[in-house]
């Protein structure tokens, strides 16, 4: 059995263990696991609008997942995707409501603003990482809180829509990311996410630059001997990862909400990171792990209304998946002392 195949079976077994434990918990709350599972499937794929809903949930997880993949491949743990998403979302919305532009151009400028905002936000921890070798995990995590509160400040004090909830004025229709179907809010964001996944996969597989990034990620000392400026490259990797994180926010505000709301999308950054980790940093596999999480989330919404189980049961199952996947990786490392080629640690 090839290594890849074995890894694949390992993930499947990990998933099965997680689902079995989830079923046990469902039994403990006096609900039938079969009923919960069927409702979950019906909620995720029951009809065309449910499928579209699942894809709608998948989109931000996928784009955040790609952002995480870029970092993981380059040996950088960007845990600040959440914050980059919030700032990107705000920047795009700001362009949307404050900067009247012709149709077509408007949405493009909005997305560019989102990308720049995400990159600019990660540039601070990335600079300190490159200059002073600070731990990017800690600094990017902390930057999340600042980003979320900063956008709250912008929304509440500077750009609040008169009356009502803490949100900005609606963006102009010229800045809308077009919807794909009439029956759902699903929009071009999904297409952007898929295209980006393919592009990033191609970039790492086929270009010299991509190879050198992977090299720094897997064997930094070797790469440095080989003449790669590791610090500079790490900085650029984080910048690219943050840019994609910002893009995720732009897709949400221009594609779905058409305005920025305070605290509008909590947790997507982390969902994306988990999807990328489950996919071993592969953008293509991330498409499927993101879809899996998107389906779980959309299914869980029907779970809440149609069964006596809470939507939160899905959060528990997600956590179990992470636990069993990381346990599997750890066991493999113990069993195989040559596992040094693993690119990162869980």
């Amino acid at each position: 059995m090839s290594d890849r195949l074995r890894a694949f079976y390992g993930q499947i077994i990990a998933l099965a263990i997680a689902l079995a434990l989830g079923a046990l918990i469902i039994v403990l709350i006096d609900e039938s696991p079969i009923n919960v599972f069927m409702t979950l499937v019906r909620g995720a794929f029951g009809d065309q609008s449910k499928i579209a809903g699942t894809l709608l949930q998948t989109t931000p997880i996928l784009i955040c997942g790609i952002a995480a993949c870029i970092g993981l491949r380059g040996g950088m743990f960007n845990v600040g995707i959440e914050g980059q998403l919030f700032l990107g979302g705000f920047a795009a919305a700001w362009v949307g409501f404050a900067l009247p532009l012709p149709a077509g151009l408007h949405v493009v400028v909005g997305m560019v603003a989102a990308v720049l905002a995400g990159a600019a936000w990660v540039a601070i921890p990335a600079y300190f990482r490159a200059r002073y070798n600070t731990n990017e995990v800690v600094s990017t995590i902390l930057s999340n809180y600042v980003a979320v509160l900063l956008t709250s400040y912008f929304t509440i004090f500077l750009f609040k829509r008169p009356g009502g909830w803490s949100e900005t004025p609606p963006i102009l229709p010229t800045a809308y990311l077009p919807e794909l179907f009439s029956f759902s809010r699903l929009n071009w964001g999904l297409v952007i996410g898929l295209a980006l996944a393919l592009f990033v996969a191609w970039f790492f597989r086929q270009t010299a630059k991509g190879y050198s990034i992977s090299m720094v990620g897997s064997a930094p000392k070797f790469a440095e001997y080989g003449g790669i400026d590791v610090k500079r490259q790490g900085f650029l990797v984080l910048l690219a990862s943050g840019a994609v994180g910002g893009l995720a926010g732009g897709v949400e505000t221009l594609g779905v909400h058409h305005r920025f709301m305070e605290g509008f999308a909590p947790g997507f950054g982390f969902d994306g990171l988990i999807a990328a980790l489950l996919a071993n940093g592969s953008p293509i596999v991330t498409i499927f792990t993101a879809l899996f999480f998107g389906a779980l989330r959309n299914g869980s919404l029907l779970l809440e209304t149609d069964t006596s189980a809470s939507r939160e049961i899905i959060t528990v199952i997600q956590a179990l998946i992470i636990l069993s996947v990381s346990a599997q990786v750890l066991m493999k490392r113990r069993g195989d002392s040559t596992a040094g080629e693993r690119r990162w640690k869980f």
Partner: protein
Amino acid sequence: MGSEMKSVFQKCLIAGVALATSLGSAAAANGKVSVAAISGYFAQGFGVSIVNGLNKAKDEFGVDLKLVDTGNRALDYEEQFANLAKGGQYDLIFVMGWELVDALQKASAAYPDQRFVFIDGVLDSDKMIYANFAEEQGSFIAGALAGMIENKGSAFDKIGDGKSIGFVGGRDIPVIRNFLGGYEQGSKYAAPDVKVNSVFAGTFDDPAKGSELAQALYGQGTDIVYNVAGPTGEGVMQASAAVDKYSIGVDVDMCASAPGNVLASMLKRGDIAVYSLIKDEVEGRKVTAGTRTFDLASGGVEVKICDDIAPSIPADVTAKLDEIKKGIADGSIKVERHK
């Protein structure tokens, strides 16, 4: 072969949907009322009060009750509304929280036969039911209480001779003006000599600013400050403890946030509102679109004097308050709403 499989699958799907729908309509034909409530705030303050009212209705009338927690992801809201409304099995769907308004309006347009009850506010659409509270009446009582206590001067613990009471509003918007108007009218009615100093924080989300504004009011000789400012108001309550003066809470019982310094709370009784709407529905008085105002007479608003303060309230003040309540209820005292 493939298409056959597909058609079998489709049939199963249709059968399942049909079964679910027939179960839903069976429940309705049964005469059993079924309600749902959707919000992200069932665990706190006003939301707890609503859950209490729903559970009371469930226990007393045996209605089917479904609580849906929206969580805090805006992306989920529309799907959740659709999931609730699609089956048509709920007679009434209670909705609480301004962040849900957008999704609510879309759901109301997509499912025109579904009756939605929006709690604590009135929106533009005339298709929905609005459970509104006569805040001006409750605030009138709060103003009368504060005015009369202030009038006692130094005879009452912690009160000076400034003859002025205060008001901290969140933002200067009509609904908050309505609270202020009631408060001013009440104070003027019961204690014409007492002046009302009002300020607006400009935000509902800044406790520090609330504290700062309240301290400024207390510094000017104001002894009692009524806050209608959401989280900003938390700062007002804290300030009253810091300078050892009095504050008045709003919406829910806030006596515990500064014990000894909170005079009373002007309660909006979400529990009474949802309970009486369900009661109407159960007893055959179908709840129809429009605004239902819950006032002093129906118990929808009330002023609760904090337990630790209540014994020290002079008898003449209590008597006068009772008289005012009766007057508002029978219409002999008119409280103007802010237009």
